[in-house]
């Protein structure tokens, strides 16, 4: 053992974590090396003093402030005039208990959901056979019926649109939730949801907007909105949700943004990990169109809480 090696092992020797043979070699070296003896003595003195430093104690103010904060949080979550927050927390707990926690199980669960969705979608949305007899309707009546349908759709969407510009967080949240009931939202409504996702000051509203947009990632305006909103987003929960949605949508144009996030040392650790996972999904080679069972190439379905 040379002097440098011996001195590097001093801390382990002091803590008693050095293996017996190395400890014996260190002691043998110490017995014959005055330089290391001085170093050892000095190290012991400084660590002894350091360990003797009194531990400062906080004032009672800290405990009071902490419990006041806890109390405020509890009251806001349960007894405030915001029943929606309470419902949301209950909903979170429900899904927390229901959904798997392990990433591998979450992935399998997402795949099962995706497969189920495709199956149901294929049955429900399959085009009617061409042989079905269609009653003869004259062109003017057809146009009238179509106009009536358009007007009804517009009315429903107008209600949702107008709610989105309300001022209070609760109102905005409820507006976003109202859009979920619109089966086929038009581009204007989707654009409003994208605006809420990008600009709304409330994390809850942005999360709900993200949830409302999740089924519509095939629409170009939604994908473009996600790509624009992601770099602006500061809340880790929303960032992770957006990243998972982009990955699930197979949006390869997100790769440069995700790459930047995954390298950003100031970003939240969970966000960086989500970006890395999404990159792995987006960079994976595409599976053949007939091989729907190949789990390794399927993007994860986002789980929004």
């Amino acid at each position: 053992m040379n002097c440098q090696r011996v001195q590097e092992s001093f801390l382990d020797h002091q803590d008693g974590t050095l293996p017996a043979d190395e400890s014996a070699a260190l002691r043998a070296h110490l017995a014959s090396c005055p330089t290391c003896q001085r170093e050892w003595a000095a190290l012991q003195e400084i660590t002894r003093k350091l360990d003797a430093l009194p531990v400062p104690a906080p004032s009672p103010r800290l405990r009071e402030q902490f419990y006041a904060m806890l109390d405020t949080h509890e009251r806001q979550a349960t007894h405030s005039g915001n029943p929606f927050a309470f419902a949301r927390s209950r909903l979170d707990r429900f899904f927390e208990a229901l959904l798997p926690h392990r990433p591998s199980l979450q992935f399998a669960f997402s795949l099962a959901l995706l497969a189920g969705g495709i199956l149901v979608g294929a049955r429900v949305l399959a085009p009617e056979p061409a042989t079905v007899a269609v009653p003869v309707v004259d062109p003017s009546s057809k146009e009238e019926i179509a106009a009536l349908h358009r007007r009804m759709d517009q009315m429903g969407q107008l209600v949702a649109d107008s709610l989105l510009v309300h001022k209070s967080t609760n109102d905005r949240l409820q507006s976003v939730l109202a859009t979920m009931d619109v089966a086929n939202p038009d581009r204007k409504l989707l654009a409003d949801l994208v605006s809420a996702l990008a600009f709304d000051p409330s994390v809850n509203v942005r999360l709900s907007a993200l949830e409302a947009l999740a089924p519509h990632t095939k629409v170009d305006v939604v994908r473009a909105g996600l790509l624009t909103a992601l770099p602006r987003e500061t809340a880790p929960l929303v960032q992770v949700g957006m990243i998972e949605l982009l990955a699930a949508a197979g949006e390869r144009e997100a790769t440069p943004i995700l790459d930047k996030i995954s390298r950003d040392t100031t970003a939240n650790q969970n966000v960086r990990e989500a970006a890395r996972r999404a990159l792995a999904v987006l960079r994976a080679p595409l599976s053949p169109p007939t091989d729907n069972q190949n789990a390794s190439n399927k993007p994860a379905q986002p789980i929004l809480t």
Partner: protein
Amino acid sequence: MAEELPTDHELMIAVRAGDIPRLGDLFERYHQRLFAFFVRLTSQPSTSEDLVQLVFYRILKYRHTYRDEGKFTAWIYHLARKVAADHWRKQSNTPIATDPTELPEVVDTAPDSAEQTAGREDLALLRVALAQLPVEQREVLVLSRLQQVEHRDIAQLLETTPGAVKVRVHRALKELREVYFKLRRERAA
């Protein structure tokens, strides 16, 4: 037979699931350690109390990001380091105390002897020496020697290996020793 206390991890999982009052148990276990951590880093007791409060506020805010396979000690120190970094960013410089009178004292009510007085002066000098170290060295010393955080947890925090942590601790101790003896010589002169 005494009932076994829940681990930090179990408590945090409960908090994450919505059992918010369990955060009080974690507060009781960790607030003094965190306070000592911040006092050693900032030399400002009043600010340190605010920073501890901020750590627990962030635990509450980001509780959903706590992972099943996570280790609570590493996570809370990770948050504490972020809080300290934000604090210094706002202050735009790292406070370094150079005069023992500026540093917080822990009041000792026992009667004084000459030996005790000398010992107290020695410790005051050591606090000054510690405050004069670069923040990276001070942090690694505080974590390993004063907070008794395991080397592998510090390695996880600093995104390095336990071996590299030991080397950093060794260098920091050496630096502390040099600063301390220099101050002592100056005081004796």
